[in-house]
C-alpha cells in the first residue's frame, strides 16, 4: 500500500488566497514531501488558469504537477478562520483548502478518490467543525485510511 504524508491546520488566519496556498503547503514542505518550487507553481497555476481549483462552495484544492517538486505522495488541509476570496464566480469565499502532491501521474488517484468520496459526504463540514487539532487529525486519518 502507498504511504501518504498527511497534515491538517485548524482555524488559521491568512490574508489572501496566495497566503492560504502557502500555509496549507507549509507542513508538507516541513515533512519534506514537496519542495518550495511546488508551492510557487501551485500559486502560479491559479494565476495562469484561473480559480478553477475552487472545486465546490468554499473548498479549494491546490496543487501543481509531479515535476514541479514532489518527493512523496501527500495531502494536507487547512480551515481558515476568515474565509478568503479566490475570485471564483460561484464558489467564493474559501474557508477550507486542501493541497496534494503526487510524485507521478498515478499515485494520487486513490488518494483523490478517497477525498472525492469524503467531499461528497460530510468531510468538509466535519473538518470545518473540528475545533481541536486532534479532532481534525482524526478526520484526516479516517479519510486516508483506505489509501494507506
Amino acid at each position: 500500500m502507498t504511504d501518504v504524508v498527511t497534515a491538517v491546520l485548524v482555524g488559521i488566519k491568512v490574508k489572501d488566497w496566495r497566503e492560504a496556498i502557502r500555509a496549507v503547503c507549509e507542513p508538507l514542505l516541513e515533512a519534506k514531501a514537496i519542495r518550495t518550487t511546488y508551492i510557487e507553481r501551485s500559486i502560479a497555476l491559479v494565476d495562469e488558469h484561473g480559480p478553477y481549483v475552487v472545486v465546490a462552495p468554499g473548498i479549494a484544492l491546490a496543487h501543481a504537477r509531479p515535476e514541479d517538486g514532489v518527493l512523496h505522495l501527500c495531502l494536507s488541509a487547512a480551515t481558515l478562520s476568515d474565509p478568503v476570496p479566490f475570485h471564483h464566480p460561484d464558489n467564493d469565499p474559501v474557508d477550507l483548502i486542501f493541497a496534494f502532491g503526487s510524485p507521478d501521474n498515478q499515485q494520487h488517484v486513490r488518494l483523490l478518490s478517497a477525498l472525492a468520496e469524503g467531499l461528497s459526504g460530510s468531510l468538509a463540514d466535519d473538518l470545518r467543525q473540528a475545533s481541536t487539532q486532534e479532532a481534525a487529525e482524526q478526520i484526516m486519518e479516517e479519510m486516508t485510511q483506505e489509501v494507506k
Partner: protein
Amino acid sequence: MTNKGTEEPVLAITICGVGMGSSLILRMTAEKAFKELGVNAKVVATDVGSARSMQPDIIIGQAMHTEEFEGVAPVIVSITNFTDHQALKEKLTEPLREQGWME
C-alpha cells in the same frame, strides 16, 4: 440510431487547468452520476489543452473552461460544484436524452 450509452460507452471528459486534481475529483463525481443514470460512459480527466483532440461526446467542467469548447462536443455541461453528483445528474439528463444516449 447508435447504441451509444448502452453497449458502446459515451466518452465524457472532465477538464481542469492541469488535468490531475479538480478534473479527477470531477471524474469520480461524473462516474457516480452516469452510473446512477444507467448510462454506459467512459470518463477521462484531462487538462484543457489536451481536451480538444480527444473528440469527446461530452465535456464537463467549470464555466470558465467549458466556454472555450463551444462546438467541440455535442454535449457540454458546466458545473460549479465538482463534488455534487446529484446536481450533475440533473444537468446531464436532458442533453443525454436529446442525444439518445439515455432512455
